[in-house]
């Protein structure tokens, strides 16, 4: 085994171990912090898949944004005195169905991928970010601008929900 194989297994182990803590921990703050390591491991796996932009996005959006929000929210709201918080499994069957469907997609992808050709792809691939930038601002310029509209909707929507009506 070379160094990269060992590192791959280290990252895979971090991801799976942390994900298990997220699922099985009864302590919600502990679960939220374990999610940090799971996201970090996934970012490492993206690097191994030569998806450098996706890895950066994972770090920026999931760890830098969403996870900070989750930890923030969880630490402010845990042990709430007058609200009943459940930590036992609820809605088992819908969850099983969704997870089974997701697992089906992932396993299907695993079987349909030509792993034998991965070696030549990995030697031929250079950094993907400049190419992604070119494609986003030339060929796929409409989806790019639509993304900004979606962000606008999120912004306006959250303002609508969170804003308290001012009586002036």
């Amino acid at each position, binding site marked *: 085994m070379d160094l*990269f194989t060992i*590192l791959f297994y280290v990252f895979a182990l971090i991801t799976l171990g942390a994900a298990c803590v997220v699922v099985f921990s009864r302590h919600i703050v502990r679960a939220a912090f374990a999610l940090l390591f799971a996201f970090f491991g996934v970012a490492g796996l993206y*690097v*191994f898949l*030569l998806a450098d*932009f996706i890895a*950066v*996005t994972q770090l*920026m*959006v999931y760890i*830098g*944004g*969403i996870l900070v*929000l989750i930890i*923030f*929210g969880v630490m*402010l*709201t845990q*042990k*709430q*005195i007058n609200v009943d918080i459940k930590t036992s499994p609820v809605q088992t069957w819908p969850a099983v169905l969704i997870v089974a469907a997701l697992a089906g997609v992932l396993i299907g992808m695993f079987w349909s991928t030509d792993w034998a050709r991965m070696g030549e792809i*990995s*030697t031929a*691939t*250079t*950094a993907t*970010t*400049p*190419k*992604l*930038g*070119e494609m*986003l*601002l*030339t060929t796929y*310029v409409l989806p*790019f*601008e639509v*993304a*900004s*509209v979606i*962000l*606008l909707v*999120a*912004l*306006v929507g*959250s*303002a609508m*929900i*969170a*804003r*308290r009506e*001012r009586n002036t």
Partner: protein
Amino acid sequence: MIESYIPIFIMIVGAMGFAVVMGKMNEFVGPKRPSEEKLSTYESGMEPVRSARERFSVKFYMVAMLFIVFDIEVVFLYPWAVSYKLLGTPGFITMFVFIAVLLVGYFYVWRKGALEWD
């Protein structure tokens, strides 16, 4: 290509190792002489009254939402910035439209007074 990540990996290991070693060293080497006063919530401060667990204002949610939206905007800026020279003026205009759309939302939030903490 993956070899170019080795410096980053070394830095991650170094940073984590430094944090863990320093934290643990503090735990093992530092003197521990606790007293009742030292263990109080705010040492030399005011005595805390009632529970710190309270309901928090929904305004925190607004700030967090703004943060996430502009965080995602930065992710979109990044590939554009990497190939900025190649994209030139058309790319600049496209990006400007992207930012302008978000600015509309920003001004909406601002005008609605969601940024004020009254």
